[in-house]
């Protein structure tokens, strides 16, 4: 089981999952926050925060999931009132009309929450709504292996250092 850790997000990836945890480079005065992508298919290098450029590549047995952090000003708002990441989803939580980009046959789910004083949304896409009974357990397997630190790590892995 591969381990992925950066920016205060820690993931033990179930088999067949790959992932990426990154902070998008800033443009002008914007402030960017950590984003984590997880997928059971090869993730392209350039993927939108919520999967544009990736969800179109999904097969019927594939899963794509996003963990997206918002700014600290969102903490305490009603949208992020839920405390803690959902750890177990049901098949009824996935609906085709919850997709951010409607693609025939797929279905999705989205949850807003606060954990460790950090506001997040979790968004997941199933390659086939018809196969959700078989796919949702894999999403739950991923959720049960995600953890969030109160603060992003002080020194991100990969920071250039003198040898």
């Amino acid at each position, binding site marked *: 089981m591969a381990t992925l850790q950066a920016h205060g997000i820690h993931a033990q990836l179930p088999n067949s*999952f*790959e*992932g990426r945890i990154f902070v998008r480079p800033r443009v002008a005065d914007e402030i960017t926050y950590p984003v984590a992508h997880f997928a059971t298919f090869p993730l392209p290098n350039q993927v939108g925060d919520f999967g544009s450029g990736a969800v179109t590549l999904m097969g019927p047995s594939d899963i794509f999931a996003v963990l997206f952090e918002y700014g600290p000003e969102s903490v305490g708002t009603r949208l992020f009132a839920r405390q803690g990441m959902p750890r177990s989803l049901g098949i009824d939580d996935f609906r085709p009309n919850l997709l951010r980009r409607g693609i025939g046959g797929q279905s999705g789910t989205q949850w807003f929450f606060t954990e460790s004083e950090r506001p997040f949304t979790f968004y997941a896409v199933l390659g086939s709504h018809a196969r959700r009974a078989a796919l949702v357990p894999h999403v739950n397997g991923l959720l049960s292996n995600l953890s969030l630190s109160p603060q992003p790590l002080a020194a991100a*892995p*990969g920071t250039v250092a003198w040898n």
Partner: protein
Amino acid sequence: MVALVIILTVVVLLLTVLVAGLLRSHADILKALHDLGAGVGDPSQEPINLETHNHSHDQERNQRRARNRDRNANGGPISSPIPFTMGSPLPGERNSTSAPTIAGVTPTGDALAIAVSGNDHLTLIAFLSSGCATCAGFWEAFQAPEHLGLPDGIRLVVVTKGPEMEIAGEVQAKAHSRLQVVMSTDAWGDYEVPGSPFFVLVDGSAGRRIGEGVANHFSQVAELVRRAQVDMQAFGVGTRREGGSRSRAFAGGLDGPARESANDQELRAAGILPGDPSLYPSSFEDVFPSDIDVLPPYPEGAGTNPPAQRSTPERRAG
């Protein structure tokens, strides 16, 4: 005369004492060297009986240990074992063909994990370093991935050692923005990489390595990948061609007795039993019979017929 005899006697006695002292000193030096591990044999031990060599060897070892314990207790020389390791063993569930997920960081510090198993495509993993001269040509070739000459559907991933052993800025300067680069020292251990450059080809559907090696130019790597792809189509490796497998042992990554048993099973299923003449070819014609043509009919009006591709006994059996 009497005086001369007395003087000679005294000189002889002095020389005797001197020689005895030198011999004693030499014996002490040899003993000390032996305790340090130099030399062969132990002068304080009884000679080895060749007939009972194994037993006496064990006794000698035990006596030496006991002697060392006594010396240590008396403040004498301490002999301590020298730690010797052969490298960290692979986890029990892995073997020399398994293809675990590659997890590490990108040169920009993001975390990245790439799953090379559990999918239906081939992944070419290039283990490179930023400093090796041979790798420079590959970094340059990867600037234009579309001109690499790789067959369609091959995923290319570059793996360098982790940021504790590579300078991330150097790697970033060499990597193209469209190139997936993972910095992971663990991956080098997982894939038993002897040095850079080194290439590994993974069949995602079978979840195992199907080729690995070194090359000086990427054209050589591309040719090896192309051949591997042809082999996969010919032997139906993995689940890509359901029902098309000619060798379940090869497809399943079996080895040793399990592979032999699976092959025997396939031969029996094809009606080839022990002693079958086809198992003992005696001529070139037995291996490549000229009366079998596996190529499709050549189109009319296309000139002379091409040379026939001959089938192998395995193809006939399958």
